[in-house]
C-alpha cells in the first residue's frame, strides 16, 4: 500500500528545506540565508561577537544599514539627537568593516529602513530564511521569505553559525476574500484583523495570508500586511510568491541573475501551500466589511472603523479587557461613545517600515495635492529608503508634500519611535502610518493613532482624524 505524504504548508516547505538537523528537544536547527543588521541592535550583536573572539561565518550573507539612530534631517552626519547615538553609529561602522559585511552607511544611496532595503535590493528572496534583530523583520514575508525578528544574542548566534534553533510554530492561514472597498489598504486589513482577534491572536503561529484579496495586493502592500504580523504576536507572516513577486524582484541588485535567476524562479513557483496541507487554525475575513481603520488606544488591537465610536470599558466581556480599555482611554484622553472621526490632532507622520514605500507616498500625495495641512499641525514625511526618496522626487512627490506643509526628510525610522532622538511634544496627538501606538512610543506622553497613508494625509489637511472617503463633503 502506498502512503501518500501529507501536504505541506508554504511555511513548512521552506522550513523543511532549511532544516540542518532535528534537535533532541524537538526544535530544529535552521539554516539562515540572510542576516540583516541595523545600528541599534546590530551593534550589540557585532560587539558581542567581537568580545567573544568569534567572527561572522559568512559575511557575504550579512547586510547592515543605519536607520534606528541616524538623523533624518537634510544634511545629516554622524551626529544625532539620540543620547549616546553617535557611539552606536560609529561602532556599527567599525565592526561592519571589521567583519567584512556589506554596510549601507548613512550617505550610501542604498541606505534606508532595514526591511524596506532588504526587499528593494533583492537581499531577502522568496523561499529564503532571514533574521534581523528587529521585530518587524516579518515584513519580508510579503515577498515569500521566511523572515523573523530575534534578539541581539540570537542574531550573534546566526552570525557565528549561519543557523538558529527554533521550535516549529503552529500553522495558521488567514483567508481574505471579497473585494476591498476603494481606498481601503493592507494597513486597514491588518488593523481590522488585530482588532477582531486581539494583539495576541497569532501567538505561537506562523501566519499565511491567502485568498483572492491577497493575490490582488501589490508586492509593497503585502510587505505592509506582513509587517504587522508581529503586532498580531505571530512568529511571522508570509504570502505565497507569485508572478507579481517575480516581476518585482527581477534585476534587483542582489537578486539572482542569468541561469541562477531561472533556477530560482522554478523553485519559487513551487512555494505555495499544498491543497491537502493542514493548518492548526484558519480565519476567514470578508474584505467587503473592512473600512478605513484607525486606533483609539494604546495597543494595535484598539482599532475601529473610522466611522465607529470609541468603545465603552463597561461593555467589555472580560473585566481585564475593561481595565485595559479604561487605562488606554485615560492615557489617550478620549471618552467612550464618541465618534473617533473629528478628534483634533497636533501632528501627522508618514513613514516607517509599515508605510513608507513609493506606493504609500503616492497615495498620500494624491490626497495632499493642491491642499494644505491645517494650521498648527506638524506634518512630517520620511521616505522608507534613500531610493524611495529619489524615486518620489523624480515624480515630484516631494514638491507636493512640501507645498502642502509636510517636512520632507532623509530616510530612517525617525519619529516612529523617537529614532534620531526626535519625539513629538508631550500631550501631542499624532495620526501616524506607523505600527505601534504604545504609550510614549513617539515621545513621552505622546498619543498615537495608527492609520493608513490616505487617512493620515486627509487628517493632516483637516486637523482632525478624518475619513478620506467623505473629506470635504462636510
Amino acid at each position, binding site marked *: 500500500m502506498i502512503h501518500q505524504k501529507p501536504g505541506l504548508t508554504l511555511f513548512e516547505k521552506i522550513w523543511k528545506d532549511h532544516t540542518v538537523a532535528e534537535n533532541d528537544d524537538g526544535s530544529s536547527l535552521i539554516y539562515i540565508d540572510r542576516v540583516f543588521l541595523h545600528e541599534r*541592535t546590530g551593534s550589540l550583536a557585532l560587539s558581542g561577537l567581537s568580545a567573544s573572539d568569534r567572527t561572522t561565518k559568512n559575511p557575504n550573507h550579512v547586510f547592515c544599514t543605519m536607520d534606528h539612530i541616524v538623523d533624518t534631517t537634510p544634511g545629516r552626519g554622524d551626529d544625532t539627537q539620540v543620547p549616546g547615538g553617535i557611539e552606536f553609529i560609529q561602532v556599527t561602522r567599525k565592526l561592519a568593516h571589521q567583519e567584512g559585511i556589506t554596510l549601507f552607511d548613512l550617505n550610501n544611496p542604498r541606505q534606508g529602513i532595514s526591511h524596506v532595503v532588504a526587499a528593494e535590493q533583492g537581499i531577502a528572496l522568496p523561499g529564503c530564511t532571514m533574521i534581523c534583530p528587529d521585530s518587524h523583520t516579518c515584513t519580508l514575508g510579503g515577498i515569500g521569505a521566511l523572515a523573523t525578528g530575534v534578539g541581539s544574542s540570537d542574531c550573534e548566534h546566526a552570525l557565528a553559525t549561519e543557523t538558529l534553533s527554533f521550535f516549529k510554530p503552529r500553522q495558521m492561514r488567514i483567508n481574505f476574500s471579497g473585494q476591498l472597498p476603494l481606498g481601503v489598504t493592507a494597513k486597514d486589513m491588518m488593523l481590522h484583523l488585530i482588532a477582531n482577534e486581539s494583539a495576541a491572536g497569532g501567538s505561537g503561529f506562523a501566519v499565511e495570508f491567502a485568498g483572492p484579496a491577497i493575490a490582488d495586493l501589490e508586492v509593497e502592500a503585502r510587505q505592509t500586511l506582513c509587517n504587522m504580523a508581529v503586532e498580531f*504576536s505571530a512568529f511571522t507572516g508570509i504570502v505565497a510568491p507569485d508572478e507579481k513577486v517575480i516581476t518585482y524582484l527581477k534585476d534587483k541588485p542582489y537578486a539572482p541573475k542569468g541561469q541562477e535567476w531561472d533556477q530560482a524562479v522554478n523553485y519559487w513557483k513551487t512555494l505555495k501551500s499544498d491543497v491537502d496541507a493542514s493548518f492548526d487554525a484558519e480565519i476567514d475575513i470578508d474584505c467587503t466589511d473592512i473600512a478605513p481603520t484607525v486606533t483609539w488606544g494604546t495597543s494595535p488591537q484598539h482599532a475601529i472603523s473610522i466611522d465607529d465610536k470609541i468603545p465603552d470599558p463597561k461593555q467589555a466581556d472580560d473585566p481585564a479587557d475593561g481595565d485595559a480599555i479604561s487605562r488606554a482611554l485615560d492615557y489617550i484622553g478620549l471618552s467612550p461613545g464618541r465618534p473617533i472621526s473629528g478628534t483634533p490632532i497636533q501632528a501627522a507622520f508618514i513613514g516607517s517600515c509599515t508605510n513608507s514605500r513609493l506606493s504609500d507616498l503616492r497615495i498620500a500625495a494624491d490626497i495632499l495635492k493642491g491642499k494644505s495641512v491645517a494650521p498648527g499641525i506638524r506634518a512630517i514625511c520620511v521616505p522608507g529608503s534613500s531610493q524611495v526618496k529619489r524615486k518620489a522626487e523624480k515624480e515630484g512627490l516631494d514638491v507636493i508634500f512640501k507645498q502642502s506643509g509636510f517636512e520632507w526628510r532623509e530616510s530612517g525610522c525617525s519619529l516612529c519611535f523617537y529614532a534620531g532622538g526626535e519625539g513629538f511634544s508631550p500631550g501631542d496627538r499624532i495620526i501616524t502610518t506607523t505600527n505601534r501606538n504604545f504609550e510614549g512610543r513617539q515621545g513621552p506622553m505622546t498619543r498615537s493613532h495608527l492609520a493608513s497613508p490616505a487617512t493620515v494625509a486627509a487628517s493632516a489637511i483637516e486637523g482632525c482624524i478624518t475619513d478620506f472617503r467623505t473629506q470635504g463633503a462636510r
Partner: protein
Amino acid sequence: MKKFTTHSGVAAPILRINIDTDAIIPSREMKRVSRKGLGASLFADWRYENGVVQQGNESPDFVLNQPAYLNASILLAGQNMGCGSSREFAVWALTDFGIQAVIAPSFGAIFYLNCVRNGLLPIILDASTINDIVAVIDQDPQATKIAIDLKQSTVAVSGQQYTFKIEASYQKLLLEGLDPIDLTLRRTQSIDQFIAKDRLKRPWAHLGGPALSQ
C-alpha cells in the same frame, strides 16, 4: 551565561496585559553600546514623573517605587508580557535592576527567548493562578516571598506550590548557564555539510564566493 537554579524574593505585580518592551525601556534610554547599566531606566515612563529618569523624580504610585515592594526581584505580569520590539535592552534593564524571574500567562515570543539567553527565568502560569498569588502576597509583600525552583519547575508561596512548564532544553541552558553559540559551534561540520548540499540545490541563494568555514 548566568545560571538560574533557585531563587527566593519579593514579587511585584504589574498585571497589565500587553506590556510592551517600549514600556520596559523606551528607545531614548538605550544610550550605550552595552548590555550594562540599564536598570535605572527600567519602566522609565511609568516609574518617573514625565518619564524623566532621575533620582528624586520617582512616581510614588508605581509599584516598584513603593516601600512594600522594595528590592523586588520577581515580576508578576499580564498576558503577552514583553510584546513589541525585539530590543534585548528590555531584558538587560530587568536583570540590571535585579529582576531574576518574570511570571506571566503568556509572553511575546522574542522577549521570552531573550530572557532565556540572559539567565532571566520566564515562568508561564495561568492568569487565575497569578491573581491568587497576588492576593496572597498583597498583605505583606516583604514577608511573603516567592520561592522558585527551576529544576523542579515550581513556584511556592505561603505553603502553596504551583508547577510551570518550560522546554527541557531551555531549562538545561538556564540551570547550567550554557552558551548556545558554543553548543552550535560544535556542530559546524554538519552545518557545513548541509551548506555544501544546499549550494548545489539552491545555488541562487548563495552570494559571493565559497563560504565554508576554514
